[in-house]
Each structure stands twice: as structure tokens, then as C-alpha cells.
């Protein structure tokens, strides 16, 4: 069995390697004719640009039907959501220049810097101009010069995102690498590894060590990206994935004792024992930096340094102003125990209706005035009747990456010993059951044998 898995893994990575090795058939054409943006690609790949405009990566939104208290017929995502990991969205934090700080310095800021458009054609735009604004190369080129991708003011004073559209970049096309994806994914949440405390370095993740990259697991078809059910990743392209699929079955272990657990315990629970990054932020009080700009106060750890919280999850999401996280229970027949990174953020709520308010970051970045940020966001959204009061929100993030080497996966004693990682009582087990589940009888013989083998 394990041999078969290894063979599949090697197969996956070989496939990746061979595909990447050969030159892109369009190279000669690009070298001869130069790169004029997506229309150059479309001479051979017709329809790709229009197809891309319909995806989450362009729209930052989709219909969402597994989350409480939202209209399932409307589209939601980074475009319009408000939570306390980043207390705004693409609308209130549309890319702009911040007012000068006390040192007279300004800079550009905006959530939609992580959008592959040029800002003139922004999140969710459509039509021929939008098609030609797509930065195909940010995902497909291995020779992208990132100093050419930045926010600047054009000659009319409008803020635009520039792109590397050089022939050099366009002549080096292939499947996106980890780096292509990490351009945006690494810095989500305000800096490297802040929101998602995982590393995809070669020595840090067992799949990456074997040459398996983002898109070997996320098998993208027609620019639709499969995703999972992280309670704070709402927008999706209509395709879901889990660890179980082409590479792994639901009973992947030669040891039946582990296989018996997979009906109630998600693979991630045992195989991703740590998480990391930011675990708390205060948006009501920003810290002054030595450069004169302010940043939200953030408590954080390095990647893979934080113990996760474990909860039953039936893949539907509780969404209230003070809590966004998993729904589920031991008894609903649909839930499994998943690992989560728990995060708590402080921000302003509207005393009038209890809702979380959002913040335009431009004012507080310049001078730390967070209420001016709330006022600006309220103006942008047309909210007139509000009274800001500080409060906390708790959010659960899925912990779905950085699979640990198998000798560090959770074993019997990690859970069934008295000081195990699971709080059986909080997970809904009766005292009597807890007694049974923490009885060494469950694992003693087995672990003794393993220990003898290893000595």
C-alpha cells in the first residue's frame, strides 16, 4: 500500500517535472512578434482571457452557499467581505496614495494590489479592455521582473498597476510554479506568512520535497481553481477538493488503526500538527513605525510555531459579527475533527446595529487615526447612521498546508494520553467516554512494540 502511494507521488512529481522541462511552443512566435498582452497569447489560445474574467482570481468573489447570514444569490469574497484579519476590502481599500505622514512621505496601498489587472480594469471588470489588462505572465512566466509591477500615477494622476510585459518575460512561459502563486499568497493578511502560517519551502513540506507544487494538488482546469472549505475562504470557482482524491484514498494507511479514524478525523488533524503567523491584531490602535507610517498592532509567531485548535466541522460556516468559524458536532453525522488556527481581532463595531465596521487604511497608515479610517470607509459605503465602539471578533482559519514528515504525524498517545492535544470533553464526549478514550489500554501494546522496533 505504502509502495503504491510512493509510486503515485513519484508519478505526480515526474509528471510535473517533464511538463515543465519542455519549451513552450509559442516561444518562437513571441520572440519574433513581441508581446502585446493577452491578445498575443490568444493568437494560439483563443478565449483564455475572457474565460479568466469569470474566475475568483479576477472577480475576488463568487456566490457562497455554505455560510450563515449572507444572501446566497449575491457574490462575496475579498471584494466586499469585512473581517478582522484585514479590516476592510477591495472597495473601501481600493488602491490609492495615502496622505503624507508627519515626515512628508506617502505611499500606495490597497487590497487590490493582489489582483492581476492594471487597476483601470479592476476587480470584477468585464469587456475587451479588461481582457487585455490581464497579467497572464504573473502566473505563467519564469522570468518576470517584479520591479516592473508596481502602483504608480499615470499622466492623468490616476493610480495604475504596471506589469512586466517584456518579450523576455513572455518568451519564458510554463505552468505556474510555487513562486508564481506565492507572489500574492505569501503576503496575504499584511506581510509574509501573516495570515497563513505555513511554509512551502523545499525542506519544510513533504510534498514540495518530492517536487509536488501548488497546482499538482490544486488541479486547475480552464482557470477554475479547486479549493477547500476553510471557513474563511468563501469565494470559490465551483470545484472543491480535499486531501482524498487522485493521490490518496480515504484509507491510505497499512495500519488499520489509523484508517479506522479517518471517518471522524480529517487527514490534516494528524498530518498538519502546527500552524503559525498572526494570532491577534488590534485595528483600533496602530503602531508607529520608524519610517513615520503606522501599522495595525499585530501579535504573531513564525510559521509552524502555533498549536492549532481542534473542532468538529461539517463544512458549513457560522458567521456572526463576533465569530466566523466552523459549525458541526459529534452527533450530526456529517462532521469531522479539523485543525484550525484561531485568530482574534479587535476593531470597531456599529453600536446601532452590532455589525462590524470596516476601515479605509489610508488615514491610519499616515497618522494612526483609526476613527478617520472608519469614517472614510463609512462614507465610501454610504453608511450614515453609525456609532463606532471597539470590540473583539474570533475567527477560525483552516490549517491545510505544510504536511509534516510522517514520523511527526500525531500518533496514538498524542491524542489518547491524558495530556493529549484533543480536549475530548469540549469535543462532546461524556466523562465516561473520556475515561475510555484516555485509557492507555488503547495504545500501550502498540506503542511498546513500535518502541522496541525503533530501539
Amino acid at each position, binding site marked *: 500500500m505504502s509502495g503504491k502511494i510512493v509510486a503515485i507521488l513519484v508519478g505526480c512529481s515526474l509528471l510535473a517535472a517533464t511538463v515543465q522541462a519542455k519549451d513552450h511552443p509559442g516561444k518562437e512566435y513571441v520572440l519574433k512578434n513581441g508581446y502585446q498582452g493577452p491578445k498575443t497569447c490568444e493568437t494560439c489560445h483563443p478565449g483564455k482571457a475572457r474565460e479568466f474574467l469569470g474566475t475568483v482570481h479576477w472577480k475576488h468573489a463568487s456566490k457562497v452557499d455554505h455560510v450563515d447570514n449572507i444572501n446566497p444569490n449575491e457574490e462575496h469574497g475579498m471584494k466586499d467581505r469585512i473581517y478582522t484579519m484585514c479590516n476592510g476590502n477591495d472597495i473601501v481599500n481600493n488602491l490609492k496614495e495615502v496622505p503624507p505622514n508627519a515626515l512628508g512621505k506617502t505611499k500606495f*496601498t490597497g487590497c487590490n494590489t493582489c489582483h492581476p489587472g492594471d487597476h483601470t480594469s479592476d476587480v470584477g471588470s468585464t469587456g475587451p479592455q479588461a481582457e487585455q489588462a490581464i497579467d497572464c505572465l504573473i502566473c505563467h512566466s519564469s522570468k518576470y521582473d*517584479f520591479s516592473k509591477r508596481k502602483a504608480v500615477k499615470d499622466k492623468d494622476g490616476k493610480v495604475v498597476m504596471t506589469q512586466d510585459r517584456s518579450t523576455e518575460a513572455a518568451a519564458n512561459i510554463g505552468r505556474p510554479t510555487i*513562486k508564481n502563486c506565492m507572489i500574492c499568497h505569501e*503576503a496575504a493578511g*499584511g506581510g*509574509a506568512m501573516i495570515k497563513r502560517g505555513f511554509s512551502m519551502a523545499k525542506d519544510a513540506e513533504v510534498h514540495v520535497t518530492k517536487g509536488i507544487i501548488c497546482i499538482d494538488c490544486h488541479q486547475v482546469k480552464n482557470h477554475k481553481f479547486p479549493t477547500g472549505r476553510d471557513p474563511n475562504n468563501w469565494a470559490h470557482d465551483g470545484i472543491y477538493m480535499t486531501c482524498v482524491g487522485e493521490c490518496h484514498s480515504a484509507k491510505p494507511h497499512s495500519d488499520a488503526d489509523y484508517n479506522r479514524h479517518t471517518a471522524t478525523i480529517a487527514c490534516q488533524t494528524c498530518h498538519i500538527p502546527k500552524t503559525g503567523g498572526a494570532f491577534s491584531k488590534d485595528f483600533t490602535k496602530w503602531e508607529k513605525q*520608524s*519610517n513615520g507610517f503606522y501599522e495595525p498592532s499585530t501579535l504573531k509567531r513564525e510559521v509552524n510555531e502555533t498549536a492549532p485548535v481542534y473542532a468538529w466541522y461539517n463544512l458549513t460556516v457560522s458567521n456572526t459579527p463576533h465569530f466566523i468559524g466552523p459549525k458541526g458536532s459529534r452527533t450530526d453525522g456529517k462532521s469531522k475533527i479539523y485543525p484550525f488556527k484561531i485568530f482574534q481581532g479587535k476593531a470597531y463595531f456599529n453600536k446601532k446595529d452590532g455589525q462590524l465596521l470596516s476601515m479605509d487604511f489610508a488615514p491610519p497608515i499616515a497618522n494612526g487615526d483609526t476613527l478617520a479610517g472608519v469614517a472614510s470607509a463609512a462614507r465610501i459605503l454610504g453608511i450614515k447612521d453609525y456609532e463606532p465602539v471597539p470590540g473583539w471578533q474570533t475567527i477560525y482559519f483552516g490549517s491545510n498546508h505544510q504536511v509534516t514528515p510522517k514520523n511527526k504525524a500525531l500518533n496514538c498517545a498524542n491524542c489518547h494520553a491524558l495530556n493529549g492535544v484533543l480536549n475530548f470533553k469540549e469535543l462532546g464526549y461524556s466523562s465516561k467516554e473520556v475515561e475510555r478514550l484516555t485509557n492507555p489500554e488503547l495504545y500501550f501494546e502498540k506503542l511498546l512494540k513500535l518502541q522496541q522496533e525503533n530501539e
Partner: protein
Amino acid sequence: MKRIVSIVMLVALMVFSTLAFVQNASAEEAKMVGTISKIEMSADKKSATAILKDTKSGEEVTIIITDEQTLDKFMDKRIVEGDEIRCKYEKVDGKNNSKIFKKTAGC
């Protein structure tokens, strides 16, 4: 004779380790936020030096970078001269070895 050599070695080792300890203790980890004024890759592309100008004091500090991910960011210009960096480094033998080298970022 053998015994003397080993005693001498032992003493030398002790002196050395005390020195090393003193040096480490007097120059532990430091951190700064600074603007990059110069990046230079080594010929084998396995290390680089970056000069950071401290945003507070204006002092220039030369940092040595060896981690692959940051080196890659220099090569494809995800990090360029003029960028503002949050850096944690360790002073060893008068050299500043980078532990963390990240672009500053808001949310």
C-alpha cells in the same frame, strides 16, 4: 607528552569557548527597519550582501543573506534597491548574518 598536548588543547579550547561566548553575548541578535541602498549578489549566487540605511538613525548596515528564498527575491526583483526592509540579524565575527529579511507591509 601526549597528555600535555591534550591539556594545552583543553586550555586553548576553554579560552576559545569563553572568548566565543563573550563575543556572542556582547553581540547577540539585532533588528532594524531600513531602506536598501545596495544589493550585491555573489558570483556563485549562493549569498548576497545588502546595505540597509536605518530609517531612524540613517546609519548604514551591511547584511549578509544566504537563504534561498530571499536570494530568489533579489534575482527576480521582488526585492529591489529602495525597498524598505524589516531585518533581524546575528552579529558573528563582525559580520551581520540575516535571519529574517522581509519587505515591510501594512495589511
